[in-house]
């Protein structure tokens, strides 16, 4: 399926099924995510792309009556195996949500939250992490003079970059993004996209988007979901220009969804 096989697979999904109560939402999904690449998940509303994303760091564990079968291997270890430390899973596989969700704390404390809960107390180290993370999220210059003001005073686009910085502060390998720009204006969206482009050299990014142009602009590979099934997964250019499946073609040419 993938055109280049040079890069290592960092996340490998095998036969994933997910049920909400008795209703099945994901059907037998298998997919590999390559290291330091951007994978876009596209599909109409209700196609299961966000549900799938949330399975990759076990955020679905928080939802009642969810049952999952199948495996998600991160560096060869199934994150659904018994005895797996959820804290470690979520540290290594971070997540950015649809709506910016800064904590009602200062900018500094938002970024330092992750390192602090994982045991870092040293003030100098925290300062360092906060600056590095904010720089990595292209927010440092805008907030460096008001680190101790409430994060809720930032604009929506700044809040979303703050949240990305907060994820980077715990040094993940993979960053999952669930429609991170759907609540933002076009300028803020462009900034987030530029940021994703910078982050791809150091992180693996899996991004859900309802915006096909966005998928085409920022991703290396694209996976198309429909009715809880993975229909097609290929290099982005290939999927958009020469879709192999009829459903994919219908979707990207706007015939439904």
């Amino acid at each position, binding site marked *: 399926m993938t055109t280049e096989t040079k890069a290592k697979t960092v996340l490998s999904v095998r036969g994933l099924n997910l049920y909400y109560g008795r209703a099945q939402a994901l059907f037998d999904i298998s997919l590999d995510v390559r290291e330091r690449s951007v994978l876009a998940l596209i599909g109409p509303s209700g196609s299961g792309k966000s549900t799938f994303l949330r399975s990759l760091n076990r955020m679905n564990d928080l939802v009642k009556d969810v049952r999952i079968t199948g495996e998600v291997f991160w560096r060869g270890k199934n994150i659904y195996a018994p005895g797996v430390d959820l804290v*470690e899973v979520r540290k290594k596989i971070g997540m950015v*949500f649809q*709506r910016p*969700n800064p904590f009602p704390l200062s900018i500094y404390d938002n970024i330092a*939250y992750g390192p*602090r*809960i*994982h045991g870092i107390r040293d003030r100098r180290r925290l300062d360092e992490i906060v600056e590095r993370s904010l720089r990595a999220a292209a927010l440092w210059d805008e907030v460096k003079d008001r680190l101790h003001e409430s994060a*809720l005073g930032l604009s929506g686009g700044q809040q979303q970059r703050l949240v990305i910085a907060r*994820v980077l502060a715990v040094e993940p390998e993979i960053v999952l993004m669930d429609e991170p720009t759907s609540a933002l204006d076009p300028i803020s969206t462009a900034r987030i996209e530029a940021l994703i482009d910078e982050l791809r050299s150091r992180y693996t990014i899996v991004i859900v988007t309802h915006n096909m142009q966005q998928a085409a602009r920022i991703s290396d590979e694209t996976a198309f979901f429909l009715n809880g099934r993975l229909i097609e997964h290929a290099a982005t250019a290939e999927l958009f220009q020469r879709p192999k499946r009829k459903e994919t073609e219908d979707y990207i040419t706007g015939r439904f969804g």
Partner: protein
Amino acid sequence: MEAHPLIAGRRTREGFRDRLGYAATLLSVAVILVAVAAIYLFVFSRGLATFFVNHVNVLDFLFGTEWRPTLTESEGGPKFGVLPFIVGSFIVTFFSALIAGPIGIGAAIFMTEIAPSWGRKLMQPVIEILVGIPSVVYGFTGLTLIVPFLREHAGGLGFGLLAGILVLAVMILPTVTSISVDALSAVPPEIKAGSYALGATRWQTIWRILMRASAPGFVTAVIFGMARAFGEALAVQMVIGNGKNMPTSLLEPASTITTVITMNMGNTVAGSVENNVLWSLALLLLLMSTVFIFAVRWVGRRGRLMSR
């Protein structure tokens, strides 16, 4: 003026209903405002008469420690020192809030975070029952259970500040709990998800994010509880022992502002200085409740500012 379709509405039936509805709601507001104004005016006029008509010294009243309203002038004049009652009110309010605060907030966390399904199903009716129990039942229960228990295990008569504190703590618990539940429920779920997604445990999320985000709500909950404790008369009167002296220990019989009013109002003649003094105490209660309300509003406003 010529009829125009756009300005015809005024004369129609709907226009009439519109004005009727406006008048009805305006009247409701007017009734409330008049009632509040009347209470303030009346309490102020009677309460201040003590000082302006009967010429009781304000400082002797507020800071005097002797309450002997029937003492004749030849014996040194009647004495209206109410400091022991003020102190009694503050002690029972403070300590009952100190007990009910942590328990109420703890119960609220359990109901919203630990066991939101069955915990809430079980506790919600329990709290509503606690709110609905009449204060005389609280007082009677306290009199029958707490007073003898304290007499046997803590010493003294059993009647006293501690008995009042314990009864009040139970009484204000539902207030503290339900407002705390509201505060916790108001925290957006995305914020919690954000914390879990960083690898935080449930305890870390509760302790570092939820508690912080709900702090102004908790303060409001405790202040509302204190307002209720400060104003409660009957249940306290039944267990506090109604001593007239400055309390020196929690086990001693004492009085609060409210209990003195209810104990004495039947025994005084309207317009007499003994009666007016009770109105002065009522004025004190009114002022304190006003302070509580402004404190709640201030906390609410500050809370909003902090979280912006």
